[in-house]
């Protein structure tokens, strides 16, 4: 049997008339597709369609096409299913993949429509009037008690919990050093600072070089406790307990030893070259009471900084979220089943969890019904692709959203889904120095700032159309959403009426 049992997915075509043999493609391709023997040659079988070569070829001599090879159609046996079987028949193991769920599940955001003012209620012109996107993350008091002081001034009687102010209701999601490069993290940190928002370390610790951005960083404490120590916990503005991740609910993580070089080893505080295995659960958390114990251990260690708890959205997410709020968390980070990852078994990424839209709605509803919505801020992530998704997520009940994949796309990522190989041609999901050095943090930061500013403008425009002048007034305002093409049961769960009603 030939080694190459599976046909190439993509065909790399070099136009030799145009090619001036500069060999840039050889340098740029992280997957080793190109070679040079008198002329540029390409091994299509290695190509992942990341477009790095296409962008960097000065002559536009390279085209990448899908292999047009015909497969006999079969509505039940999708070609991808057949390919998976071929792969697993050849080498036994779980199929690994990167990025978020790529299956064509119903996308609820795309079935929600936003209201606008006409005639009877005036819209607001965001160019003329101030629009407030500022958001405070953290626990809000049950009630405000005020009294008059000796000079007759009104003063607050009950102390307020620590809250974090962000200028836009968009933060960057947790992406660890190890899964992405330090330059990618730097870019995100610079952008978070410029935007007045937050980034999140992910579970890989905090590199020394990022400590200056600590006022814009949430540090994560995950099951492997990598890089978690007193100084780290105190560095950021908040600590996040990572219970789960949308791309891989309920399972641990394995960062292979090849990716644990000197720098990553220093930040994770594990020896170079060893696999970083994150256990599936935190073994000190088997119950809500245990979660409370860790939340308060972190608060004690940090002088009562806000604590966020990140969970993957699963079937009974509402009850879990209620437990998290009652356990003392200040924020709940919901990661939907479309959330990205550096590496996950495809079976879990594609089939486990529930959509973020549903999770936001049911969690918001549950917390309101219990009268404890003020106890936590809800951060929604895992499938936020545009400013429209931001508006819809907040209208469904989120306080803010987090973006990961969108941020990487802004920095060049082509969603090739090969992050787990560590060969990312864009210098993002890799630790190979020749690849990471090509991602200039300032360039990346500028693109991230541009993206978030663009979305902010769009959110303000939509708010104006809604006749709302503060993002707070949109939160949980499901009456300003209608659904198109969703079944009645889903509408009910979402708390959204169908169009026309």
């Amino acid at each position, binding site marked *: 049997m030939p080694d190459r049992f599976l046909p190439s997915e993509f065909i790399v075509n070099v136009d030799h008339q145009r090619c001036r043999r500069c060999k840039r493609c050889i340098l740029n391709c992280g997957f080793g597709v190109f070679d040079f023997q008198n002329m540029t040659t390409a091994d299509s079988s290695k190509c992942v369609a990341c477009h790095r070569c296409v962008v960097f070829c000065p002559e536009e001599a390279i085209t990448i096409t899908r292999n047009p090879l015909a497969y006999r159609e079969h509505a039940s046996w999708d070609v991808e299913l057949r390919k998976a079987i071929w792969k697993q028949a*050849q080498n036994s193991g*779980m199929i690994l993949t990167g990025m978020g769920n790529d299956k064509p599940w119903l996308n609820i955001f795309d079935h929600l429509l936003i209201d606008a003012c006409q005639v009877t209620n005036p819209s607001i012109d965001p160019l003329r009037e101030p629009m407030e996107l500022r958001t405070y993350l953290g626990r809000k008091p049950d009630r405000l008690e005020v009294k008059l002081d000796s000079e007759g001034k009104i003063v607050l009687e009950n102390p307020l919990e620590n809250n974090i102010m962000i200028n836009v209701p968009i933060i960057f999601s947790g992406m660890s050093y190890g899964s992405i490069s330090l330059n990618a993290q730097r870019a995100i940190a610079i952008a978070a600072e410029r935007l007045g928002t937050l980034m999140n370390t992910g579970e890989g610790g905090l590199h020394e070089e990022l400590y200056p951005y600590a006022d814009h960083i949430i540090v994560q404490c995950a099951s492997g406790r990598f890089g978690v120590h007193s*100084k780290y916990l105190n560095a950021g503005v908040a600590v996040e307990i990572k219970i789960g991740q949308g791309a891989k609910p309920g399972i641990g993580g394995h960062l292979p030893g090849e990716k644990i070089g000197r720098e990553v080893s220093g930040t994770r505080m594990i020896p170079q070259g060893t696999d970083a295995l994150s256990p599936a659960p935190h*073994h*000190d958390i088997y119950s809500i009471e245990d979660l409370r*114990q860790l939340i308060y251990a972190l608060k004690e260690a940090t002088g009562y900084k806000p604590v966020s708890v990140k969970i993957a959205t699963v079937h009974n997410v509402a009850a879990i979220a209620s437990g998290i709020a009652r356990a003392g968390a200040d924020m709940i980070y919901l990661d939907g089943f479309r959330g990205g990852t550096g590496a996950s078994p495809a079976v879990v990424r594609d089939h486990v969890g529930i959509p973020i839209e549903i999770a936001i709605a049911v969690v918001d509803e549950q917390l309101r019904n219990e009268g404890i919505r003020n106890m936590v801020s809800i951060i929604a992530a895992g499938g936020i692709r545009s400013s429209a998704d931001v508006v819809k997520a907040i209208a469904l009940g989120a306080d803010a959203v987090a973006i990961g994949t969108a941020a990487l796309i802004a920095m060049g990522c082509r969603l090739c889904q090969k992050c787990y190989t560590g060969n990312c041609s864009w210098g993002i999901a890799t630790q190979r120095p020749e690849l990471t050095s090509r991602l200039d943090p300032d360039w990346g930061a500028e693109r991230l700032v541009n993206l978030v500013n663009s979305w902010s403008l769009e959110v303000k425009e939509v708010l104006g159309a809604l006749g709302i002048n503060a993002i707070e007034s949109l939160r949980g305002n499901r009456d300003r959403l209608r659904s198109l093409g969703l079944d009645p049961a889903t509408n009910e769960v979402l708390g959204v009426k169908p169009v026309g009603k």
Partner: protein
Amino acid sequence: MDKSSHALQREEEVKTVELDARRFHYRELNERIKSLINSGYEEIILNGVNGQRYIGDGLVHKVRIVINGVPGNDLGVFMDGPFIMVNDNAQDGVGNTMNSGMIVVRGHAGDVIGYGMRGGKIFIRDDVGYRTGIHMKSYRDQVPVIVVGGSAGDFLGEYMAGGIIVVLGVGVNSGKIVGHYTGTGMHGGVIYLADSIDQSRLGNEVRIFLVNDDDVRRLEALISEFSRLTGLDVSGIDPESFIKLLPASHRPYGNMYVY
């Protein structure tokens, strides 16, 4: 140098203070401990401790804390330096995610001891519960150590990535020194047991070895330090008869995937 022994080595002239802990909720107690440290006390003796959690949480100071009474869960969590002596039993989560320092318990301890611990030492005179030393790891010159005088429950050293666990089994019936699933997912570090055990108590990822001369020297040093600090009589213990558990592979899950 081992950071943990600093407090012991100090000869005299230690600035000591006693505190009656009975009146305090943990939050207040820990605030007081911090302020005592900030005002220069090097030894704090807590009397009447009764279940207050998080004592020593996140402390990075070279301080000695003596606890008379039973401290609550997560004693010394995220701790990075102090020496804690407990003259009684301790509960769950002793030395959770500890970075350096030392905790000595002159009694039993509960579950999840030394979870994710990266450095320092934990000595428990008697028995420990389930899940001890899960995901311990070493880093550079930091080698975490847990020594248990009695027996350990199930899941000892699960996912262990580095460091040393020693179980002395004093007063424990033969074959019962550890529970089941010992060393499951272990991929680094070493576990020493004073008594041999049935293979059925081991995870798939560990193998049993005999101790060598280096192991014996290391054990002798640890056991004598343990005995000195916990007061346990270790006269019947012979390090040469110990068994040693090592991971079968440093990458137990390397072949689980196809691309």
